[in-house]
């Protein structure tokens, strides 16, 4: 009982406390994660759009360079076969290539002779190479020639991003590249095209210039083929006869390819299948000549881990706070349960002690709460019980007195006398002593009662009792057997002969005149004696003997004591 209620209460309250703080913590944690991811999504989309703009401006710069070259007089002149113009153009190409490490090749390609290259400078591992003579190739079948030739002055052709498989292209060979071209217009119309080969890796580097390192870039063409992917083996799959599509890796991007949405963001928190441990933003970017309806899809990914770093540290502090609150709630619930159970235990203890020992233990009577009320009720109940019990005890004492004493004389009655005699016999036997029982019967009491009335009779009996008590030792017992019969128990009798003197004294005292209210009476008594152990060893035997002796005495003449003569 002691551990039961307190422990249960403590556990219950501690559990409520822990649960409440845990749930609050968890809610705060997950809400925070969602907020962080939302913010990251917005930032990432902005970054992707920024990337998009940066790509546009890079492409514009390339276009500006192409136009600059196409507008050089040397360009148109070279198309007519002017060797000097070709050399001048070569110097320009050389200078531009030196200034732009992202350019792999600069060429002037004729509109005639199956697209024969007229001036060509390639980048090589060692530096720049001018390609001349028989090594110049016919490029008429390449889109950057046949698509550019019909364009008007100032228009720009932008190729699809693909791997350059042109044989003998030096550093450009086998590299993912982007080709920018523009027509060169001479006196008799378009006579050549200027072609810039841009390395995708350099473009990528420009795009990623101030992106954090852990950001990953995706780029797909308008069919979804990956051109840039954090895993290079996933790019240009079509070039190896195996299409690897963005729509397959990120099905949500289908919306970008079917033009139902210009941008989208997915995150690993809501969509762990598509954006596994990532937040990815995608933006569709129109690309090249508007009538070709080309576009690329740019994607930027940020690891979810980075985004949630804040949430994780918050999570850790939440765990600490939850732990602290749990400990506090355990401590508080223990204290509370103690505060509640201690007064209850106090009451229980007081009740136990009161019922077993009638002890009045201190109670929390000063409290103003329910426990105080309970304590006061208990205290009131306890005092009531106490007073009831005192009354009962008194009554019991009185009843016991009445049961053992004669009401008229206040002397022990027959029952008490028997008890004392029994006790005395036991004592005498132990000490090997004598004791005597004296049976006193008043002579002429009947006459006094008849003549003078009961009141007088009673007065006589009271007086006799007083005289008998006065005549014996305090240790002796005087009792009234009823009517006019009294009996005495005398212990510690040295020898029977000493009794005669006592009997004489008694007889003399009882014979003396009694001054009653209106007159004096004289009453006598017959006394019979029996001795222990001579006359018996049980109360009944001793009393019987004394009675016999008394009758014998009475029949011999009054006022004499007589020992019962055995036989």
């Amino acid at each position: 009982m002691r551990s039961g209620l307190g422990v249960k209460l403590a556990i219950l309250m501690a559990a409520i406390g822990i649960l409440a703080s845990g749930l609050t913590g968890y809610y705060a944690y997950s809400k925070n994660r969602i907020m962080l991811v939302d913010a990251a999504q917005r930032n990432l989309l902005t970054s992707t759009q920024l990337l998009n703009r940066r790509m546009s401006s890079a492409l514009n710069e390339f276009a500006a360079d192409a136009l600059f070259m196409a507008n050089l007089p040397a360009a148109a002149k070279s198309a007519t076969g002017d060797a000097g113009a070709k050399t001048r153009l070569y110097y320009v190409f050389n200078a531009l290539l030196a200034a732009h490490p992202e350019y792999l090749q600069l060429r002037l390609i004729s509109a005639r002779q199956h697209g024969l290259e007229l001036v060509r400078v390639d980048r090589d591992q060692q530096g720049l190479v001018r390609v001349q003579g028989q090594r110049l190739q016919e490029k008429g079948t390449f889109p950057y020639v046949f698509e550019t030739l019909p364009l008007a002055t100032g228009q720009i052709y932008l190729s699809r991003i693909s791997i350059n498989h042109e044989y003998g292209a030096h550093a450009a060979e086998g590299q993912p590249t982007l080709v920018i071209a523009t027509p060169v217009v001479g006196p008799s119309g378009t006579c050549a095209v200027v072609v810039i080969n841009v390395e995708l890796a350099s473009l990528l580097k420009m795009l990623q210039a101030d992106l954090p390192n852990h950001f990953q870039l995706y780029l797909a063409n308008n069919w979804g083929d990956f051109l840039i992917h954090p895993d290079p083996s996933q790019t240009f799959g079509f070039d190896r006869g195996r299409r690897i599509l963005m729509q397959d890796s990120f099905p949500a991007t289908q919306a970008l390819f079917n033009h139902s949405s210009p941008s989208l963001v997915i995150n690993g928190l809501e969509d762990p299948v598509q954006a596994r441990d990532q937040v990815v933003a995608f933006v569709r970017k129109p690309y090249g000549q508007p009538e070709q309806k080309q576009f690329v899809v740019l994607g930027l990914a940020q690891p979810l881990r980075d985004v949630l770093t804040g949430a994780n540290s918050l999570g850790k502090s939440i765990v600490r706070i939850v732990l602290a609150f749990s400990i506090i709630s355990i401590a508080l619930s223990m204290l509370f349960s103690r505060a509640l159970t201690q007064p209850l235990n106090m009451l229980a203890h007081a009740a136990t002690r009161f019922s077993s020992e009638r002890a009045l233990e201190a109670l929390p009577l000063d409290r103003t709460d329910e426990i105080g009320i309970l304590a006061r009720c208990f205290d009131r109940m306890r005092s009531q019980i106490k007073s009831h019990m005192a009354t009962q005890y008194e009554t019991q004492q009185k009843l016991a007195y009445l049961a053992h004493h004669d009401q008229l004389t206040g002397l022990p009655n027959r029952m008490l006398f028997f008890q004392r005699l029994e006790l005395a016999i036991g004592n005498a036997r132990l000490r090997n002593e004598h004791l005597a029982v004296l049976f006193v019967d008043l002579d002429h009491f009947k006459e006094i009662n008849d003549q003078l009335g009961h009141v007088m009779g009673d007065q006589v009996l009271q007086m006799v009792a007083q005289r008998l008590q006065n005549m014996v030792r305090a240790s002796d017992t005087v009792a009234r057997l009823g009517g006019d019969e009294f009996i005495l128990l005398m212990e510690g009798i040295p020898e029977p002969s000493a009794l005669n003197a006592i009997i004489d004294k008694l007889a003399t005292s009882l014979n003396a005149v009694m001054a009653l209210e209106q007159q004096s009476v004289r009453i006598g008594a017959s006394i019979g004696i029996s001795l222990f152990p001579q006359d018996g060893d049980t109360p009944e035997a001793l009393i019987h003997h004394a009675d016999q002796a008394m009758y014998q005495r009475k029949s011999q003449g009054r006022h004499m004591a007589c020992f019962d003569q055995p036989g």
Partner: protein
Amino acid sequence: MQTRLIHIILRWLIVSALFLATPVCAMDTLRVLAWPGYADPDVVRAFEQRYQAHVEVTFVGADEVLWQQMHAEHGQLFDVVAANSAEMQRYTREGLLAPLELSALPNTRKQLPRFQARASIPGLIHDGRVYAIPYTYSTMGLIYDRRQFSQAPQSMNAMWDPRFRQKVLDFNSAEHNFSFTALTLGIRAPFNLSPAQRARAAQRLIALRRNVLTYYNQPEEATELFVHHKVALMFGNYGTQQLSLLRRAGADVGYVIPKEGALAWLDCWAMTRAARNRVLAQNWINYMLDPWVSGLLTQRQGLANTLTASTDLTPNAKIIWLEPVVDTAEREALWQKIISGDRPRSF
């Protein structure tokens, strides 16, 4: 009460485990290696029900991947395989395949006579035994714009016709270009060219380059170029599959098998030497020739099947089934120079 509940759950688990385990243990598993579209889920399910077997399909997207899968784990991974007849020839020579019993393949009798004449198709028979059964094929004919041709072109030579300068599309492939050019030069063995034959073909391919608009890789790309540049004639590497794409894009196109003959690939089914249950494996091959299954291939993938005659493949049409090219590397090296624009004197 609790222990009673546990007992009930346990008993239920044991009973259901036995119930589930029995059919799985009893069923054979057929391991299929195929190209996407050759074993659609509903087709597989119907087979599983019919033959009370379990089928595991692995798809491949390229001949190289197929080759790797066939050689992985010492060629023990698959029971049946779908590959083109040229690949089958290699597998047969390597001893990776097991011969087939025609009596176990009654559906072969429903095939077109051309496909029942197995001896005429290289790669199906080895040492007098049948190792592969044709399943689907695609010819590489000529696609032409009906509006620019009053009469369908008859010969491959139309691609060199200067009237169609920059109106011709060619496919970017060293093997096929050398093969069909060899055919136009009247060379008998287009898959194994001598250095002299190759040199002749190379010069002719430079001439073709000067006549074509460009080379394509993907069918979508070809369609876009065809429509945008009003192309007159195209080497149809993807065969009749390209026609539907072109027609959807608004082109009015026709398809011919030139008189020199059209190259064609032929995909076949074969049973591997590692096949655990040969009856089940041959049941699969026979099932693939079921009119229902072969019909679905045409219906869903636009691929021709070997049971029904198609418009392009008349009985007299000359078909040159692809064979392994012997001089691949040499063709590849020359082709790189050709498409990069090297001039005739650099060869």
